């Protein structure tokens, strides 16, 4: 079942120099029970997309078209109070920096109780809820953790507490924006395992937004690849990593030194730079950096070509 559908969403940021088109006709779907990865480099619009899904994209942002539908209802046109009722309760969010996700002057326990203000029940039962959720995410002494302030926890523990906070209200859709970027590799592995274990008994959809190719490969069932505010390729994780069809996806995967089996030598690079999103050209936005570029690519936007039932790429060079 499709829980969340983003349909042809366009968003621009107003800047003194003119509007920047951060999202240009993005469509994605997240289904119940799946982990969807949104992959891309800085400036591709992945974090803007995550913020737009909960309709908190920042004061200078303006949605210029499209819809975000949660269970069929367009979130963007709902009154503010109904939107607020959805956030947290139905669509949860885990932010990149677990330090700033919490209020520094309140204990973890006080904040986890506050987060449940939508729910009925006494403070004591909410505190008990919070404690069992902290235990669930692998915090060893949960009762102690409730009494601590955010700065007293290590980065890994804070990220676990942030995950507990997001899961407390049992949302259907959980969005994690770069959930492991601030962590060491050993802690990153533990958080990945935690998210995977939680996914087994969490029936909703998890959306992971990251630039880390390893995290997506470990965790996701399906991947959406973004470039310059557009979706360029979408498919099952194995197809994306082993049979990428869009030249950008292939180039991005090739750059990662983790992909190579031996050290030394030159790494492949993409060359060129991201297009200016203030004045995007008429054709394919990857054309200036693409190795397979043709005349057509500079003039006409590429069609979305379905390679299989689950795999599609927006490229003139792709044929079914």
């Amino acid at each position, binding site marked *: 079942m499709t829980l969340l559908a983003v349909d042809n969403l366009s968003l621009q940021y107003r800047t003194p120099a003119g509007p920047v088109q951060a999202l240009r006709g993005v469509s994605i779907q997240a289904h119940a029970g799946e982990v969807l990865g949104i992959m891309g480099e*800085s400036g591709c619009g992945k974090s803007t997309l995550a913020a737009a899904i909960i309709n908190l994209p920042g004061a200078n942002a303006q949605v210029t078209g499209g819809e975000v539908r949660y269970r069929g209802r367009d979130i963007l046109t709902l009154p503010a109070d109904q939107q607020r009722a959805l956030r947290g309760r139905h669509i949860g969010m885990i932010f990149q920096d677990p330090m700033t996700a919490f209020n520094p002057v309140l204990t973890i326990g006080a904040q986890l109780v506050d987060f449940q203000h939508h729910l009925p029940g006494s403070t004591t039962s909410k505190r008990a809820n919070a404690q069992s959720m902290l235990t669930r995410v692998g915090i060893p002494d949960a009762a102690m953790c409730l009494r601590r302030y955010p700065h007293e926890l*290590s980065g890994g523990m804070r990220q676990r507490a942030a995950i507990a906070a997001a899961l407390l209200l049992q949302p259907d859709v959980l969005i994690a924006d770069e959930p492991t970027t601030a962590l060491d590799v050993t802690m990153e*592995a533990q958080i990945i*395992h935690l998210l995977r274990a939680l996914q087994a008994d969490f029936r909703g959809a998890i959306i992971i937004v990251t630039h880390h190719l390893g995290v997506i490969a470990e965790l996701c069932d399906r991947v959406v690849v973004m470039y310059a505010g557009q979706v360029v390729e979408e498919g099952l994780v194995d197809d994306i990593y082993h049979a990428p069809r869009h030249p950008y996806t292939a180039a991005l*995967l090739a750059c990662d*030194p*983790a992909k190579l089996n031996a050290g030394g030598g030159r790494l492949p690079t993409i060359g060129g730079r991201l297009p200016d999103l203030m004045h995007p050209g008429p054709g394919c936005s990857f054309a200036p950096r693409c190795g397979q570029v043709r005349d057509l690519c500079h003039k006409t936007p590429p069609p979305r070509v379905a390679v299989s039932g689950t795999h599609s790429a927006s490229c003139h060079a792709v044929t079914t």
Partner: protein
Amino acid sequence: MSLLTVQDLGVDLPMAGMFSQGRLNILSGIDLTLQPGETLGLVGESGSGKTTLARAVLGLQKISSGTLTFCGRPLKDNHDFRDIRRDAAMMFQDAVASLSPRMTVGQLIAEPFVIHRVSRPSGKVADLLAQVGLPPDIAGRYPHELSGGQARRVGVARALALTPKLVIADEPTAGLDVSVQAEILNLMNDLKAKLNLSYLIISHNLALVRHVADRIAVMYLGRLVETGPTTQVFAAPRHPYTASLLAADPKPDPRQRRADLAIKGEIPSILRRPLGCEFHTRCPMAQGQCLTKVPQLTEKQPGHWARCHLT
């Protein structure tokens, strides 16, 4: 003759508090050598003392014990360290924050000449910019006008300004996208061959270290736990910590997902250093002697050292 020799290095810091007499042991017993033209990769989790070690080598952190030798010359007082900072340059972790926001790129690149009172050949700034692949007109820009990759390149140009023998790079690609990371690594690789540089690269990115380093040194809680040729350490790690670090690194291949966790828990606080082998609290192989007896760094294979009772 080796370029840099670190022998039995220790760093203690005074504990916080005005009347506190205690000292906190950050690094101890570090032995490292770096040959000319060699790249040494220093890896470990946050808090393992990697950056402190790099700062100690440059005299930015006072050492409490041990000796440092650079090109055969022992480093003792501030005067020695000032000299070595001409031959050993540092690329700092946060590339943008390490550039003064009030200076232009041209001024920033010329600054090492001013600091070390070395006369600057005319056109040197433009040469350095060309060497790191930046257009000459960038010299008039301020740091906030640079992208992350450009700021890194300015950091490389500054490090190379006085034609050093050694470049210490602290997380040279942290915060960069993989495609930009590849460009910076290629640039550093080209410059190494061209200028016969040695690198000391500090990183927690194991794939990066495997790609660039000839030898690797693994640190845990301020101790060296394993050191050896990169290929050998990656193929057959001799310390369980190295093995678990390698296993924890997510591979960009969904067919290589890990079934279970190699390492649990967190790095302990240095305020409460475990007794015996410091890794025993997280080690999957820990036995009786590991809890009481401190293992010594021993040579397990020629050039491949590890600090473990069991391997």
